[in-house]
């Protein structure tokens, strides 16, 4: 009877031992897998150039510069407007403080930008400036609440040297000028920009570079 009990006890003990070892192994296994998974990104992830829709409501400002030289350098910068809005006030350098940049009144040559922009805002859509010369064509217009500036540098030969197109929503300009005198409120402008739909803001094409600045809801440039 006692030998039966001893045998039963030994079997229970052996079972417990095996169970404990198995539990330890099972518990440790995911740790190893986790360590491997953590180590996995060691290889640099390749560029994800496929357009990914950003989270709902996210607005991204994209800048793309393509050099037309032999090396074909391309620069792509994608900035979430929300990030820029939050980070910009933290930059205090030179003329930039609290998200506002000081403008040197000497550089605007006594032109009251605020009054000028107010005049444009209240005016009807139309062309304000049209200059057609041998070297340059300049067009400044207001169309569907956007200020449009179009400059074509024809160069001396008359062939198209460079072309600049700027299209800025009036609300963004208003926000930009909403700070005190001699100041541009960049954060307010970014905030106003965020409320706009997908739009191309700046396009510059010349012999050396192609620059494009635009706004959309994708978190990668095309």
């Amino acid at each position, binding site marked *: 009877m006692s030998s039966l009990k001893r045998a039963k006890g030994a079997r229970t003990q052996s079972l417990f031992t095996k169970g404990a070892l198995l539990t330890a*192994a099972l518990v440790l296994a995911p740790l190893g897998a986790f360590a491997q998974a953590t180590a996995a*990104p060691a290889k640099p992830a390749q560029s994800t150039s496929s357009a990914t829709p950003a989270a709902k409501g996210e607005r991204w400002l994209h800048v793309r510069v393509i050099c037309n030289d032999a090396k*074909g*350098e391309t*620069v792509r910068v994608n900035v979430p407007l929300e990030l820029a809005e939050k980070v910009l006030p933290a930059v205090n350098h030179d003329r930039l403080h609290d998200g506002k940049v000081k403008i040197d009144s000497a550089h605007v040559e006594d032109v009251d930008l605020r009054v000028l922009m107010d005049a444009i805002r209240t005016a009807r859509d139309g062309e304000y400036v049209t200059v057609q010369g041998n070297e340059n064509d300049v067009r400044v217009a207001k169309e569907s609440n956007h200020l449009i500036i179009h400059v074509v540098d024809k160069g001396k030969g008359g062939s198209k040297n460079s072309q600049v197109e700027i299209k800025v929503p009036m609300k963004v300009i208003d926000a930009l000028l909403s700070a005190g005198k001699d100041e541009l409120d960049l954060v307010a402008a970014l905030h106003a920009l965020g409320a706009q739909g997908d739009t191309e803001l700046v396009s510059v094409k010349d012999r050396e570079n192609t620059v494009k600045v635009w706004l959309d809801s994708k978190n990668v440039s095309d």
Partner: protein
Amino acid sequence: MMLVAKAALGMGGALVLAGAYTFHEGVIRVDVDEYCAGGSHIHMWVPAAVVPMTLHLVPKHHLREAAERAREFLPLTHALIKELKKFPDADFVEVTDDDQHVQIRTHAGKLQIDVEEPDQNVHLLVPLSTLDDVTSQLELSAPGA
């Protein structure tokens, strides 16, 4: 045998806890490869949780000095990291030409910087939470904090 089992369980448990704590913030990965005569090849793999712990061991006066030097950039860095955490998978900067590639992006909550040139490759991967911890510690160590 019973004793061995108990020891295995104890060790296993301790290892799990230590492992979970060490890896819960991921790893910092640094890879530098210089493809030239005598060029160095550095491949470093450090559990991110170790960094804030190590900072506690750094003599206070060294941290104060570092914080003093970085004082101008700390609010910007703090704001930037805080915002970057909201964008765990995004490409921010990419520069390419025929023989170079530079990329700054976030990937799975980590800041990833890759520089590939003909004569060297540098890859850096740091969890944003680790950068946040380091910045916070430096801010706390700044004189007058």
